[in-house]
């Protein structure tokens, strides 16, 4: 879809906010990698059409493209509650189970997707590959990359995302929005991209080392004990900082629609992953 097409759709939506044109517009933005814009369009559309399974499926694909698999699962789950034969939602959830290594669940959903859309050759191929993997004797709990159905390849990291996803593998925002750094401001893992798509993890890490020191001094001075977290709200994002281990710092950055309380919960999970990663044998 050309820029002009997108401009026309945007104009149509501005003229009639209740129009379903948010669906092709959101899809076009997603395909162009403009995930933040796509998410805003679809979320706004869902406020008017909260029971439209197609919209939840689209939002899930936007989130999945951005690596936010947890929320993507929620959206596909909602889509299936609204339409239990929704092929896209079955395919998406099948993908997530596949990534998680739960092949029986993955197969159930992929077969349901195929039943809903028998002409989907890619899904048929995926079903066949998962069946093969299940039939393989004593295979790994999660399929190796080489056995992944091409259709269900892990979403590509956003442009500019850091190339070290293993610290937070499987967590929401593993490649964009989670950052692990040491006390000297050096990035250890994770990644962060600015809204313009540029990689900013290293620069942000460098600035945060000072926060670590100042926070420690401030709480010590006030006899408040060790600091446990720093949360910051900006007009367009929420940040949450904690220390998963001595001399390390974890940063979560999310859109400001994600409440700080939820960030704290996500930080707990990410901290556990960071500790495991930091304590792994060299």
């Amino acid at each position, binding site marked *: 879809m050309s820029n002009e097409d997108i401009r026309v759709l945007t104009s149509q939506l501005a003229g009639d906010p209740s129009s379903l044109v948010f669906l092709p517009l959101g899809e076009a933005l997603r395909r162009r990698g403009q995930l933040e814009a796509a998410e805003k369009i679809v979320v706004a559309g869902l406020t008017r059409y909260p029971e439209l399974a197609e919209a939840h499926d689209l939002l899930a694909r936007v989130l999945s493209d951005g690596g936010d698999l947890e929320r993507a699962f929620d959206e596909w789950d909602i889509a299936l509650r609204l339409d239990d034969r929704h092929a896209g939602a079955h395919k998406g959830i099948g993908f997530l189970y596949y990534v998680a290594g739960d092949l029986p669940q993955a197969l159930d959903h992929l077969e349901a997707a195929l039943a809903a859309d028998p002409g989907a050759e890619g899904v048929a191929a995926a079903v066949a590959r998962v069946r093969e993997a299940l039939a393989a004797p004593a295979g790994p709990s999660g399929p190796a990359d080489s056995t992944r159905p091409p259709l269900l390849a892990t979403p590509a990291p956003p442009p500019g995302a850091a190339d070290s996803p293993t610290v937070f593998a499987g967590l929401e925002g593993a490649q964009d929005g989670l950052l692990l750094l040491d006390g000297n401001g050096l990035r250890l893992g994770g990644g962060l991209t600015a*809204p313009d798509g540029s990689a900013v993890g290293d620069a942000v890490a460098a600035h945060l080392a000072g926060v670590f020191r100042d926070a420690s001094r401030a709480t010590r001075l006030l006899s408040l004990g060790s600091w446990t977290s*720093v*949360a910051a*709200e*900006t007009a367009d994002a929420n*940040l949450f900082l904690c220390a998963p281990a001595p001399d390390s710092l974890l940063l979560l950055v999310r859109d400001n629609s994600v409440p700080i309380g939820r960030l704290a919960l996500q930080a707990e999970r990410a901290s556990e992953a960071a500790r495991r990663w930091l304590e792994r044998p060299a």
Partner: protein
Amino acid sequence: MRADIVGSLEAVTRVRGVRGAMVVSAEEGLVVAESSMEGIDGAAVAALMAGVVARLGRATEAAGRTAPAFVHLQAEGGALLAVPAPRDLLVVAVTDAEVNVGLVRLELRQAAEQLA
């Protein structure tokens, strides 16, 4: 003017669990006004909290985001909360561990607005 500032800080310190509140110059980290800060080294807190907020501001700028509108530094025994105010000021509260952070944030914001 100073009486107005102190008045707005008193609304913050009336919240249960707030040990003290102050207005700080964001750039220099100096205390402009304070309320109920007995037993607290206000000058040091001002300098350190201004430093935390400034560093977070540089980090969010590097991330392509806007400056923090609220900062919450949580420790085992209490918290430091800060809201930027016009004229390059910060309104800061020092609290116990058991405090309604949402309510303190509201009062800090109102205090910041009154500094306009």
